[in-house]
């Protein structure tokens, strides 16, 4: 009988204790963050989407070689002797047209290994992390500031120059051969 009454009392008492706790939580402010409207501040050295400041890029290909998943593709064309490509912000002279600088973020593993070798510090991590796409191909970002025609033009120019050089070389060689036949 004593046990029975004790059980009854305990049941009621514990329910009231539990209800007190939930009532307290009813009036504590929620911990939810209304995500798209409110965002938590990111840590200082957070690693997210890469950005390439193409004006500073000298096309040295070091980031591409450092990448463990080969997500960076760089194609360069040598500048012609007469062309002046200007200098980078830390005073390095640019000698290459960067005709293609693609980063495939579907492959990127955000390891930041490409950032350290860059001699001009033109590739770095930003704090953008919302860049999902419906099509995987849209995740390939093109950083080169040359349009495709321009790039093709540069390539053609260089090839022409190369061909001319070859021709010249051949011509001089032939001249030499003509001058002193063995």
């Amino acid at each position: 009988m004593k046990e029975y009454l004790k059980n009854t009392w305990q049941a009621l008492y514990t329910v009231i204790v539990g209800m007190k706790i939930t009532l307290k939580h009813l009036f504590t402010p929620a911990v939810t963050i209304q995500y798209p409207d409110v965002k938590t501040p990111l840590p200082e050295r957070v690693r997210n989407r890469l950005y390439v400041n193409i004006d500073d890029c000298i096309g040295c290909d070091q980031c591409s070689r450092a990448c463990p998943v080969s997500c960076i593709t760089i194609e360069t064309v040598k500048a012609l002797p007469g062309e002046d490509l200007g200098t980078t912000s830390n005073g390095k002279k640019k000698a290459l047209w960067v005709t293609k600088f693609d980063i495939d973020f579907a492959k990127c593993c955000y390891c930041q290994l490409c950032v350290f070798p860059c001699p001009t510090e033109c590739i770095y991590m930003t704090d953008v992390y919302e860049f999902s796409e419906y099509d995987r191909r849209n995740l390939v970002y093109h950083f080169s500031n040359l349009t495709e025609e321009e790039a093709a033009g540069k390539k053609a120019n260089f090839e022409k120059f190369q061909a001319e050089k070859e021709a010249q070389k051949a011509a001089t060689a032939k001249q030499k051969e003509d001058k002193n036949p063995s």
Partner: protein
Amino acid sequence: MYQALYNLTSNTIISTLIVALVPLTLILLYALFAIWLERKVSAHMQDRLGPMRTGWHGWLQTIADMIKMIQKEDTIAADADKKLFNIAPVLVFAGSFAAFAAIPFSSAIIGSEIEVGLFYIIAISSLVVAGILMAGWSSNNKYSLLGAMRSAAQIVSYEIPTALVVLTMVMYTGTLSLDKISQQQTAYFWNWNLFGGPEFGLAKFILIPFMLVAFIIMFISTLAEVNRTPFDIPEAESELVAGYFTEYSGMKWGMFMLSEYANMFAVSSIVSILFLGGYQSPFGYLGNTLGIEWLVPIEQLFWFVSKTLFFVFVQMWLRWTLPRLRVDQLMTVCWKYLIPYAVANLIIVGIVTLL
């Protein structure tokens, strides 16, 4: 209201149908609010926010859900007993809807002033069991069947303490009419049955603890009758998917949901009528002091709805506080604890009332 409509249309069927539409609309509006409230209460008790993006604090969420539900395909399992399967949700909803006929919302708004209102509500709410069993059996699914069996066992068991407490209150008040029970507890809140009833004297003070016991038993057993947590073993989602309405989809599922919330309201209103004076104001009426007669029923409606919604809120509060009971624990609570206390209470209140 019925009489006025009858004079207008001189057709019993049309006027009855129009009158019946009023509680239906009320139930729908209340369910819209209650479902939103439930989600908000549950969210805030867990330090979340709940729906926030539809309207102000997500108040349109239920409407959005309802539109989604109406658009859903009405699937019927291939092996289901189609007739019973289709009748079951209607029957369940009819059971809880019919209970609203006898509930006095205020002294002016009563569906039917029947003398045996309390008896009628207890009887008609048992119809829900039949509907649930039907739903569980016709679905031809083990989870549904288990849920229906559990539900039947639970509702039948918990009807005994409910009936015993109702008997106690009937013995004390001397009437089965819900309107008369409400009228007895008029004027101030110390006249409520929870505080020993309207008659002032020694008996009132002796009765207070026993009324409190009766109130607690009534609340627990009605909570179990509407299958709410901690007594929600018929639809225990972690064990039985969704219990007896596992196979239902779309609007039929919606009817089960609607009847659950309608039942919550009906049961809460009975508790508030029996113990907290129903539509009676705890502090007297503004309409009486100002001499505006038509204000009184509106005030009564306000008090009735707020008392009932308070109990609905307590039901939600309990839901997010207590874990679900095991089947044997459920039966222990009913047969070993609630019924003996209810019987003892019945005898004591009977003796005190008699003396």
